[in-house]
């Protein structure tokens, strides 16, 4: 591919003197900042806050599942009104907790927290831009997210409790306050919060797309972009195309809830009363929801895959294997993710013929996913692997991506899904492939780019400790759930004491074990938090390019100021994966080093990279 000239030239000059005037006020620097790096940090910190909330909730309901007889009265100062007089979690509160947990983890942590942090931080730095295309929109994106967070947080404490119809909020359950008390005020706030969230996601995504397309520095052709950027770009496109559909689904739901329409409601008798709604379709909501919902799972995982591609190449001291194949599979996954949504609905009552179609489409998407996994492993082959904490988390991600992806072959095959749908098998599947894998990408990214974010290093030993406890812990928590699911145990069950005669005992020990593992794993995350905040202020000062990496963010000063590069933006001369090139005496050649300076290692293919 020949070099596409980008139109950044005038902009570059205009910004050249940018970092002389550093005297911003506290407010414009830390709060209403338009600097992509600060906004990234805001997303990260907010994401961490939500991860703690979501994680604490999971510990709480894991206690209910693992120790059903435990008396929680001791916790009543914190969660007093969630308990029954016997000191147990109320069944509706249980549902509210899993709903909030799912919503928080999927949207607030792994969408906003992950994309918000790394797309913001890395896009301008890795493509060589002074900032995002629109700093103002970028700032708005964060503040809409912030507002959305506040509304969601408040909803946890309102009368009747937060939304409790599951994170998928299927109507009629979510439409009728008579059906569950969380569908009153709590659900209204959930919808408002998500509407704000969608605005934030759209503002962010549009910005990422524009920036990647328009603001690449000279020489940064599309096929010289690091895989992180490809992943963020496709993620953003997915977001732009799918979030509006969720918004429309939510709007119709709001109409049904408050204005007497019947989009989703029909023939309902509840609380001693036959409702007048007729002609609506409950399935319609599911179609709309999953039209977002499935791309959403890729919105969650793709950035993590991008991050690990970069880290695995850097830390194996090798080019990523099959760069182009990786790009095409990111695209393949992106396109296909829009045509598989109904695999979540095989037994929803939709026409079985549709089920067949979606089975085929679903299993096609397994192919590019498999390609990615194989390419990661091939990158390790004959590498010179440095196990930094970031590298460990990346390898952990690949391990989870494979384990969890494989169970997708069961769920994606409609006939096998009949028996697995909505059981704990599904819980195991998505926690491994989406929850754990994305979280590991998030951790990997933080460990790897912390030096660029805060100019200091995180403590390695704690990083190793954190990795091993979390890696083993996550497998111990989520792997056993497969067995429980194969045995036909439904998800979203408050307790199994009433479940089929004679089957109560079968998994009591296993559930207790899983809960233990979950709580220990959760507590271990505080080691990470300590490391994170301590190193922010007291960590050892980072060198300019601590991982001997090729990408151009490492050519910025230790703590890049506004505008990122004090002088001109470096020109990009080669692809980002010239690691351990034969002939070169160093094992890396950064992207801004021209070929003319490295005659000893140039190859015929270099002109096409």
């Amino acid at each position, binding site marked *: 591919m020949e070099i596409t000239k980008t139109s950044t030239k005038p902009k570059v000059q205009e910004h050249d003197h940018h970092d002389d005037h550093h005297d911003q006020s506290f407010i414009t620097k830390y709060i209403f900042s338009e600097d992509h790096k600060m906004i990234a940090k805001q997303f990260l910190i907010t994401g961490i806050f939500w991860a703690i909330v979501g994680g604490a909730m999971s510990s709480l309901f894991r206690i209910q599942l693992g120790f059903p007889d435990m008396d929680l009265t001791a916790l009543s100062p914190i969660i007093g009104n969630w308990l029954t007089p016997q000191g147990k979690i109320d069944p509706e509160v249980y549902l509210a907790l899993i709903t909030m947990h799912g919503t928080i983890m999927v949207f607030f942590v792994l969408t906003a927290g992950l994309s918000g942090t790394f797309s913001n931080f890395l896009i301008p730095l890795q493509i060589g831009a002074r900032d995002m295309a629109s700093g103002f929109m970028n700032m708005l994106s964060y503040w809409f997210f912030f507002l959305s967070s506040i509304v969601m947080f408040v909803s946890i404490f309102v009368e009747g409790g937060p939304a409790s119809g599951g994170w998928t909020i299927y109507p009629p359950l979510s439409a009728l306050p008579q059906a569950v008390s969380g569908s009153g005020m709590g659900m209204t706030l959930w919808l408002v919060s998500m509407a704000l969230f969608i605005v934030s996601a759209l503002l962010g995504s549009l910005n990422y797309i524009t920036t990647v397309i328009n603001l690449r520095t000279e020489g940064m052709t599309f096929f010289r972009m690091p895989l992180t950027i490809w992943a963020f770009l496709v993620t953003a496109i997915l977001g732009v195309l799918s979030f509006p559909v969720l918004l429309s689904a939510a709007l119709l739901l709001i109409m049904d809830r408050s204005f007497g329409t019947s989009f989703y409601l029909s*023939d309902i008798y509840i609380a001693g009363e036959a409702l007048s709604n007729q002609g609506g379709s409950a399935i319609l909501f599911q179609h709309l929801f999953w039209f977002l919902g499935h791309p959403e799972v890729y919105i969650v995982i793709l950035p993590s895959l991008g991050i690990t591609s970069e880290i695995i190449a850097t830390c194996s001291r090798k080019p990523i294997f099959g760069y182009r194949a990786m790009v095409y599979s990111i695209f393949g996954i992106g396109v296909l993710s829009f045509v598989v949504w109904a695999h979540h609905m095989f037994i929803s009552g939709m026409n079985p013929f549709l089920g067949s179609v979606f089975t085929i489409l679903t299993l096609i998407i397994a192919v590019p996913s498999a390609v990615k996994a194989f390419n990661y492993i091939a990158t390790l082959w004959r590498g010179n692997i440095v196990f930094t904490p970031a590298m460990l988390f990346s390898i952990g991600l690949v391990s989870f991506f494979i384990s969890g992806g494989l169970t997708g072959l069961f769920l994606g095959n409609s006939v096998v899904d009949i028996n697995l749908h909505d059981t704990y098998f599904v819980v195991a599947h998505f926690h491994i492939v989406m929850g754990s894998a994305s979280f590991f990408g998030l951790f990997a990214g933080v460990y790897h780019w912390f030096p660029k974010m805060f100019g200091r290093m995180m403590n390695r030993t704690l990083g190793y400790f954190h990795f091993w406890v979390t890696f083993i812990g996550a497998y111990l928590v989520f792997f056993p759930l497969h067995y429980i699911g194969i045995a036909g145990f439904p998800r979203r069950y408050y307790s199994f004491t009433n479940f089929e005669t004679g089957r109560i005992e079968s998994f009591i020990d296993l559930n207790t074990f899983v809960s233990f593992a979950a709580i220990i794993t959760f507590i271990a995350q505080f080691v990470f938090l300590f490391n994170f905040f301590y190193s922010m202020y007291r960590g050892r000062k980072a060198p300019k390019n601590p991982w001997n990496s090729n990408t151009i963010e490492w050519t910025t000063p230790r703590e890049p100021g506004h505008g990122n590069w004090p002088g001109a933006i470096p020109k990009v001369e080669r692809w980002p994966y010239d690691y351990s090139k034969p002939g070169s005496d160093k094992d890396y050649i950064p992207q801004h080093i021209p070929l003319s300076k490295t005659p000893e290692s140039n190859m015929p293919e270099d002109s096409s990279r």
Partner: protein
Amino acid sequence: MNLIIGIILFLSLAVVFLLFRSTEILSVAKKKIATSFEDSNNSFNAISGVVFMFLSFAVIFWYSYDQFENYFLPMASKHAPEVELLFWVTMAVTFTVFIITQVVMFYFGYRYRYKKERKAYFYPENHKLEIVWTVIPAIVLVGLIGWGLVKWNNIMGPPPKDAVVIEIMGYQFAWASRYPGPDNELGDANYKLIDVDNIVGIDFTDSSSLDDFMPREIHIPKGKPVLFKIKARDVIHSVYLPYMRSQMNAVPGMPTQMWFIPTKTTAEMREETGNENFNFEIVCNKICGRAHFSMKHTVIVEEEWEYIKWKNEQKSWIEKNPDYYANFVKNNSTDVAVLND
């Protein structure tokens, strides 16, 4: 108890903190640059990966083998073994891939861990290899899908004509069932007619509803196709019969259905499981509110002659609720169908 937990917590915190301080101080003392690749922990991490992997394989194999009876449910419908066969073939395929990829990955991690004197092998691509590992999964997937779709179409396809038809309705938080009675035809129902007694809203202006009956427990005959006509009256529920490997959502405003052929009676299952209280149960498998977790309904599978005997003993709904019916006739005198005997 609380004290013990507290102490354990405190001790682990102390350990972590010591770990942290000592390494931090050590690395400062040794003047190591913060990023040196020669990290004494590199081999530790590489080896731990391999050890972790083998330990997990051991545990997975042991548990999967040891607990098989516990997590693998007996199969009680004609299509269950077919579904399970595909399930286990998929398991064999995925498990093989799982083992191979994890072994290769952690082995590479160990084998190619950092050594100062070595240089990594610059190996950016190999089209042949990439085509191979694109095409092979694709072929395997086509096999799995093709097989799956054939089965799917059989199971979800139209039921045999002679199927025993039963209407199942889910509501917060129980199930109701209605049989067509001797005329083999379910009468109409309308959600507007629902009240405390007539919970499914049977419409008695339709003469075929007059002999419909609503038992406390569902009875079905072994060896005969059974068709569930499924409804919900408030929120979505799901009819899930794990032993039959059958499931279908119950959706308000949209009738759904599922059918299967039971192959084991309740009595046979009691013998097989050694549990004399065993019962097939419909469990609700779609979140539906407060008591979702306890929404279930007993299903009794019996020999055909037992089933017929049971069915003949059932009294129609209006026989059981004569006052309700009388009232209904009074209020709808113009268009009520009359029992014509």
